[in-house]
C-alpha cells in the first residue's frame, strides 16, 4: 500500500481545498463529538484518542428524516414532485475503523434488489478518510466482529498519527488514489516502518466472542430465557438503534399535510419499539420486549449474515455506552458465546 505523510497544517489546507472544490466534508469539531458538515479547516479535529461520537455519521447517507415525495392537489389531480438530492460528493474525515465500513455494510440492504436512490446518491462516490483508533473502553469490541483499531477496511484513505504534528496517509483504494491526486502538493514521502511500529503498539480490545458460533447458536435457540432477561430490563427507548452506524430500519409517514399539499417522509425507526410490528388487527408477532431484543441480536448476528454475508455490527459500543439502563450488547453476545 502506498503511504505518504501529511502534516497537521497541510491537512487543514487540504480540507479547505476540498470545501472550495465543492465537496461536502463531514467531520467532528473540537467542541462536539458528533458529526457535522465542516465549513472551514479551523473546525476540524482528527483525533485518534477521541471516544466514538454519540451517534454515527450514518445520517448523512441515511437521513434521520427526509421527504421521499411532495404532493400537490390541483382540482383533485395530484402532482407528485420528487425531492432534489445533493449532487456534491461526501467526504467523511476521521472515521474510526468502527465507522468506516458502515456505508458498505448498509449498502447491501439498500441495493439487494430494489435500489434506494436516497441512500445511493449520497453513498456512491463518497470518500472515507479513516483514522487509526487509540481509544478504548470496556464497551469496545471491534475485534470480535472482524475489525480492529488499526484496520484500514472501509477507508479509501487511512490516517495514522505519527507525532503531534504529522499523520501517515495510507492510500487504500483506487478511489482514494484518484481522489487525493489533485492534492499531492500537501503530501510528502512516507516511512512505512514508522507507521507500522506505531500501529503495532496499539492495543486490541479483547476478543469477546466468535460470530460464527453465535450465529449457529441463534439458529438453534430461538426461544431462550436470555432474551427475556434482557427484555425485562430494556425500556424500549430505541437509543441503541439510532446511535448505531449500521441499523437501518425506517418508517414511511405523511407529514405536514392537508388536502392541498403535503409530503411523505422516510423516518428512522427502531425494532425495539412496541408499535414497530403491531398489526392493524391488534396482533403483534413481537409483543414483548424480550422478543424485540431477540430481533435486535438475531438481525445483527444471524439474519443479516445469512442474507448479506455481513455482521450487522462494527463493535463500536455506542449502543451500550448510551443505554439508559446499562445493557451491554457485547456482554449479551459474549454470554450467548459461552452457551454455544
Amino acid at each position: 500500500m502506498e503511504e505518504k505523510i501529511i502534516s497537521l497544517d497541510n491537512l487543514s489546507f487540504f480540507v479547505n481545498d476540498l470545501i472550495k472544490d465543492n465537496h461536502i466534508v463531514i467531520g467532528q469539531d473540537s467542541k462536539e463529538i458528533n458529526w457535522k458538515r465542516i465549513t472551514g479547516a479551523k473546525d476540524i479535529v482528527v483525533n485518534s484518542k477521541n471516544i466514538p461520537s454519540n451517534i454515527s455519521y450514518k445520517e448523512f447517507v441515511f437521513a434521520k428524516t427526509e421527504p421521499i415525495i411532495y404532493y400537490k392537489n390541483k382540482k383533485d389531480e395530484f402532482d407528485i414532485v420528487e425531492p432534489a438530492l445533493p449532487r456534491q460528493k461526501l467526504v467523511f474525515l476521521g472515521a474510526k475503523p468502527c465507522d468506516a465500513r458502515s456505508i458498505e455494510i448498509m449498502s447491501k440492504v439498500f441495493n439487494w434488489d430494489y435500489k434506494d436512490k436516497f441512500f445511493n446518491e449520497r453513498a456512491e462516490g463518497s470518500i472515507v478518510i479513516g483514522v487509526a483508533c487509540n481509544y478504548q473502553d470496556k464497551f469496545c469490541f471491534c475485534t470480535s466482529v472482524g475489525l480492529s483499531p488499526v484496520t484500514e477496511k472501509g477507508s479509501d484513505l487511512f490516517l495514522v498519527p505519527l507525532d503531534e504534528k504529522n499523520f501517515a496517509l495510507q492510500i487504500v483504494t483506487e478511489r482514494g488514489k484518484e481522489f487525493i491526486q489533485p492534492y499531492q502538493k500537501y503530501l510528502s514521502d512516507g516511512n512505512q516502518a514508522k507507521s507500522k511500529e506505531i500501529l503495532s503498539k496499539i492495543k486490541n480490545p479483547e476478543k469477546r466472542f466468535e460470530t460464527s458460533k453465535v450465529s449457529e447458536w441463534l439458529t438453534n435457540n430461538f426461544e431462550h430465557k436470555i432474551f427475556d432477561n434482557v427484555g425485562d430490563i430494556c425500556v424500549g427507548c430505541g437509543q441503541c438503534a439510532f446511535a448505531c452506524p449500521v441499523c437501518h430500519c425506517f418508517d414511511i409517514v405523511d407529514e405536514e399535510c392537508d388536502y392541498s399539499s403535503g409530503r411523505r417522509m422516510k423516518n428512522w425507526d427502531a425494532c425495539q419499539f412496541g408499535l414497530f410490528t403491531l398489526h392493524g388487527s391488534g396482533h403483534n408477532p413481537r409483543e414483548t420486549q424480550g422478543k424485540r431484543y431477540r430481533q435486535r441480536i438475531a438481525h445483527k448476528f444471524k439474519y443479516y449474515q445469512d442474507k448479506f454475508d455481513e455482521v450487522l455490527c462494527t463493535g463500536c459500543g455506542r449502543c451500550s455506552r448510551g443505554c439508559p439502563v446499562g445493557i451491554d450488547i457485547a456482554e449479551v453476545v459474549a454470554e450467548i458465546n459461552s452457551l454455544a
Partner: protein
Amino acid sequence: MSGSNIYKPEMMEITDIVQETSDTKTFRLKFKNESTAKSFSFKAGQFGEYGVFGEGESTFCIASSPTRSEYIECSFKQIGKVTTALTRLRVGDSVGFRGPYGNYFPVEEMKGKNVVFIAGGIGLAPVRCVIWNTLDLRNDFKDVTIIYGARSFNDLVYKRELKEWKERKDIKTVVTVDPGGEVPDWDGEIGFVPAIVEKVAPKAENTVAIVCGPPIMIKFTIPVLQKLGFAEENIITTLENRMKCGLGKCGRCNVGNVYVCKDGPVFTYAQMKELPQEY
C-alpha cells in the same frame, strides 16, 4: 446508476366501489397514466402499497386476477388510519399505488392438478385472485374446490361471486359460517372452517391446497390437511406481517432471515415450518 424513486406511487382512479360488509370495501382501480396501464402486469398473490395523500399507505393484496388486466381490485377492512381514509373515498377519486410486490402462487406448477382453495374472512381477497386466475384458465386444472368461511353471514365478502361459484357445475363451492352466525334462510354449512375442510376436502393425491385467513384458522386447518394426507409442499399459505416499504428495505416485515415482502408473502407449509415461530 441510482435510478428512479422506488417510493413514488403511480396514480390510480377508483372506477367502482362495492361495499362487501359493514366494514369492508372493494375498489376497482385504473392507472391514470396510459403507458403505465399498458406495461403493468402482476401475478396472483402479489400485493401493493395503496396510499391516500395526507394519511399514508396501507398494504393489500391485489384481489383481482392477472387474467383481467384492464384494472386491479383490492378489498380492505376499515381498521385504522389509512383504511378509514380510504373508506371515505368515492368513485372518481385518486389513490396512490406502488407495486406489484412480493412473490406469487405457483399457478404454473398447479396446472394439471386438483386445487382446493380454503379461506376465512377477508383472507378470501388473495385467494379470490388465484381463484379467478384458475377459473379463467379452467381447462388447465383438474377438480377445483372452494371452501370459504366467515364468522357470520354478514362477514362474508364477495357475496355475488360466492353465488356465481356455487352455481357453476365445473367447481365445488362450500360456504360456511361459524355456529350462531347464520341467518334464517341460510343454505350453506354451519361450522368452523377446519371442520368443514375435514368433511368436504378432495383427496390429497395430486392436489394443491391454498389456505389464507386469520392465524387461528390456519393453525387448525393445516393439521386437518396433513391428516388427509397433504404433503407440506402442497399446502400453500400467505403471511401478513406489518409492512411499510414492501421493497425489502425498511426492516419491518421479517420472520427470521426472510423478508415477507420480498421472499413472501406466499409460502408453502414446508417453508413456513423452517421459519422461527414469530408471525
